[in-house]
């Protein structure tokens, strides 16, 4: 056959360049001294060191490895036997089974994900009754009455989509195998099981290995199916990365991925060298050239059949097993060591040292997870996907949760630090008698703009909608905020249920959208866009503005004159929380003045703790040896006159929510 010339080779090369360019960049920036993934700030191994301190990354990596290892092992064994079984069926039965086998591979991941999610939820729903009945009827085994999405469902989902790949790789080997081989082995004295191990297994081994390899790869890489079946108390690395891509991917992830990538690369290289050698050997054998076996290899092979060699072989097998079980066991212990309080919050919304401190102080393990919006949290809780004790939703979502009876009343006698919460933040409309909540942070929504890209100072929401900054504006990507701001601009209440007013707000936004004012719709992606100077104007939270300011000094923040939304995020405990007392301890710990100070410093959101709020400027000076810019303090903890301009969201009735939603979708089209 004609080999490719230079042209052909360079086309292949270009294709690989395209595939690998982003990967090289990722690896390159894992050695960046700075945090940016676009600006080189010098070489450093900093992020590789950091790796071992980043709980979220390490834990999700452990989960990923555990799920992938276990599901691959299960799928490989199950798939191999299934392939043998299917293969010995008659065509009439085999064909429909193979069609079903194709479903998980050919179906869109998202459909597989949601179908499994709905299935599990339906099952859990029914299970409660069955378990109670079983428990009432016998007392030998106590069945848990409440189950949620988690590690088990994740592994089941992975096994389900992995088995088809194993079968697909094993089946052709079976098909190629001489049908008489098994008969021959039995004829020579093997039982069927012996024949299986001595003949079938070695024959189909290459298929099993490549099937397992693909299954493992798919498992490690999978995001979509895990996303829908893991619930939220369990996170795989891809899910963690997804959470981060919205805000800022810490180069720690680059570092982890680089290490994984290198590990696989090394394995592949070794494998390649070996198979190249094997290919050469086979070629020589096929050409009837005398093959001189390596005498050392020969001697080794002979040694393997001696009693001592056999013992060595068995020992090796045993050690391999022990290593596998040990790894799985370690990972299980690491990820599952009885979490004693499950907390769900937002991304980068806590000083992580506080978690370690709490654990050291109380001996309670904290399983700290994040979601990205109130709505996601609500969906998770609603679908039974979550198993949290403490959640930190925002005001309007709290009232919705209370309304639907999903929250537990707190035991304030266990939370002495509640006394320190400023009266301004108690008994707010979402929890008028303050039975369910302890405020976590509060703040305002305003305009963030890049002073180098915008003429003069912005004071009005109008700059979001007029043409002066067309193509440079980022719209906030949630209907409540986007329309709420428009309502405010038009002089209506953010909580109006009047459909005409809401429609007017929609028209304002849609009109600007048609004129090409908006560059995109963003949530946490706003960090990247604004810090990198990729857009001029965005709407976001004051605390997050201050985080961005650390990376881009040109940014400014304003709460426009028309007024805005102000919000409170508060800690609540879910109904039937399994670790109620520990949850109280956690809430009390976080509500303390010290915790509030450090959180404020770390996340730049204002604290509801009176002492912390007052002491912060002094504390800052003490920590950093320089005065806190009063302007910054004012943006963080908006003065009362600003708050007076602002309105807090209250939960909208269901028809209004649906109306919002429809308009929002029309906007997206």
């Amino acid at each position, binding site marked *: 056959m004609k080999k490719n010339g230079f042209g052909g080779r360079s086309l292949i090369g270009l294709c690989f360049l395209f595939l690998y360019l982003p990967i090289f960049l990722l690896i390159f920036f894992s050695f960046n001294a700075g945090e940016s993934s676009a600006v080189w700030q010098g070489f450093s191994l900093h992020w590789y060191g950091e790796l071992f301190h980043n709980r979220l990354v390490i834990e999700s990596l452990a989960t990923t490895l555990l799920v992938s290892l276990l599901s691959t092992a299960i799928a490989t064994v199950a798939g191999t036997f299934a392939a043998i079984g299917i293969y010995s069926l*008659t*065509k009439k039965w085999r064909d429909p089974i193979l069609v079903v086998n194709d479903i998980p591979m050919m179906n869109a991941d998202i459909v597989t994900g949601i179908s499994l999610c709905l299935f599990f939820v339906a099952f859990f729903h029914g299970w409660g009754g069955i378990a109670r009945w079983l428990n009432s009827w016998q007392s030998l085994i106590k069945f848990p009455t409440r189950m949620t999405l988690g590690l088990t469902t994740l592994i089941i989902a992975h096994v389900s989509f992995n088995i088809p790949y194993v079968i697909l790789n094993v089946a052709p080997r079976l*098909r190629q195998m*001489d*049908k*008489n*081989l098994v*008969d*021959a*082995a*039995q*004829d*020579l*004295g*093997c*039982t069927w099981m*012996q024949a299986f191990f*001595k*003949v079938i297994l*070695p*024959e189909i081994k290459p298929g099993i290995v490549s099937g397992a390899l693909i299954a493992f790869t798919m498992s490690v890489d999978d995001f979509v199916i895990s996303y829908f079946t893991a619930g939220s108390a369990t996170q795989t690395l891809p899910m963690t990365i997804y959470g981060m891509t919205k805000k800022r991917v810490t180069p720690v992830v680059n570092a982890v991925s680089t290490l994984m990538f290198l590990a696989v690369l090394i394995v592949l290289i070794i494998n390649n060298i070996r198979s190249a050698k094997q290919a050469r050997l*086979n070629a020589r*054998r*096929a050409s*009837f050239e005398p*093959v001189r*076996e390596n005498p050392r290899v020969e001697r080794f092979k002979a040694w393997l*059949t001696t009693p001592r060699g056999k013992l060595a072989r068995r020992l090796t097998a045993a050690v391999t097993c022990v290593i596998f079980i040990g790894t799985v066991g370690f990972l299980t212990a690491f990820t599952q060591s009885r979490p004693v309080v499950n907390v769900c919050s937002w991304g980068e919304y806590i000083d992580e040292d506080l978690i370690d401190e709490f654990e050291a102080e109380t001996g309670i393990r904290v399983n700290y997870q994040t979601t990205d919006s109130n709505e996601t949290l609500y969906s998770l809780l609603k679908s039974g996907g979550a198993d949290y004790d403490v959640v930190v939703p925002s005001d309007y979502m709290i009232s919705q949760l209370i309304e639907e009876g999903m929250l537990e009343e707190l035991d304030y006698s266990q939370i002495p630090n509640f006394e320190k919460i400023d009266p301004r933040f108690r008994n707010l409309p979402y929890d008028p008698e303050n039975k369910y909540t302890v405020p976590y942070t509060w703040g305002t929504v305003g305009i963030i703009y890049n002073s180098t890209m915008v003429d003069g100072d912005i004071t009005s929401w109008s700059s979001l909608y007029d043409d002066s900054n067309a193509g440079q504006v980022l719209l906030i990507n949630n209907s409540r905020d986007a329309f709420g701001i428009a309502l405010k601009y038009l002089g209506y209440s953010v909580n109006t249920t009047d459909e005409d007013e809401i429609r007017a707000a929609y028209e304002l936004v849609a009109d600007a959208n048609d004129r090409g004012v908006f560059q995109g719709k963003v949530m946490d992606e706003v960090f990247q866009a604004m810090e990198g100077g990729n857009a001029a104007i965005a709407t976001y939270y004051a605390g997050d503005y201050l985080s961005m300011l650390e990376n881009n000094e040109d940014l400014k923040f304003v709460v426009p004159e028309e007024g805005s939304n102000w919000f409170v995020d508060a800690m609540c405990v879910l109904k039937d929380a399994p670790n109620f007392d520990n949850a109280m301890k956690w809430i009390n710990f976080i509500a303390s003045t010290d915790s509030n100070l450090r959180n404020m410093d770390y996340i730049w959101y204002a604290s509801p703790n009176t002492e912390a709020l007052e002491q912060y400027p002094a504390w800052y000076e003490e920590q950093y040896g320089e005065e806190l810019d009063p302007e910054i303090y004012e943006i963080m903890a908006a003065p009362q006159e600003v708050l007076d301009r602002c309105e807090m969201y209250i939960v909208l009735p269901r028809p209004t929510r649906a109306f919002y939603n429809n308009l929002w979708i029309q906007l997206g089209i």
Partner: protein
Amino acid sequence: MSKELIRLKDVTMTFDGETVLKDINIYFNDKEFLTLLGPSGCGKTTMLRIIGGFQTPTSGDVLFDGVRINDVPPHLRQVNTVFQKYALFPHLNVYDNVAFGLRIPREAEGPDGKKQKVKLPRDEVDRRVREMLEVVSLKGFEHRSIASLSGGQQQRVAIARALVNRPKVLLLDEPLGALDMRLRKDMQQELKRIQQQMGITFINVTHDQEEALAMSDTVVVMNEGVIQQIGTPEDIYNEPKNAFVADFIGESNIVDGIMRADGVVEIFNRRFACLDGGFEKDEPVDVVIRPEDVDIVSEAEGQLKGVVTSVTFKGVHYDTIVDFYGFKWLIETTDYCPVDSRIGIKIDPDGIHVMKKSKYSGMFGDYSSYSEEYDEINDPTLIDEESAEGGEDEE
């Protein structure tokens, strides 16, 4: 010869409602070379697999040394098989393939009378493997991989692998099917030699009548799941029981005749002397006349007169097709008769074989479409595909 070793009693086998073997009754003697011969789909491989233990008959019994072994799995039978296309283990080399069976621990009665698993000692395995490789002339090939062997060498490995276990019976499923013509001839000799050297029963399955005649002590001709005839090669050739056997073994002209009296048969309204008897008077019969038993004489001298329609030179002789009253005969003769010449023929009494009418009467023995049939016989692509009869379809 010697004592009976295996007997099939009323064995019937059906796959998905299709009967593959019908009421088979047969026995196999010790130290005998026996061939099951028949066209593809005749049930011969199924019979072999029943003896090997890979299939259980739908009804009937399999007896080994007088003991019923229907439910004994293959690995416990004192029978080994050389499979179609050999079924050598591709992941093992020659030595390990041959040693495979010896390395399986066998159940044996220990000194205390208890059954226990016993493994052959390593040096014993080694000795027997090397000995057997010598028997099949493969010394020095121990470490070769299977893929690097030629067809004939693979064949020898397969035989060695089976024989090394010292079975009482060796089953061979189309052992020479995958070899080319020359090698096949050599291996026929070789197999016979090995059988005599080992002194055990060989049961061979083939669709090649020449092979069957050359190697066997006994030939069993089968068709459509029924045994047509059992006998020595000579019997089968000279005294076929029906038109099917006559046609399947060698070339034959089969014509309708009427038995007028013992030793007198009428063909084409002419009476011929023959050696057969025991028929009713005027019974319609099938008459077999082998092509080499016909003498060509001048038209006037001939018992029958015909016209030559085609002549093919075959080296030793000419295949001459002669038309007798619209019925075409094949005659092997050393005399050249040009096409369209009119000739007569003579048949000696011992050249005529009379058979009872059977369901095969009228189906064979006419050479009207000679050339096509001839091609078919020599078509190497029409090798028995009996492996498909197990009811399994493979791509």
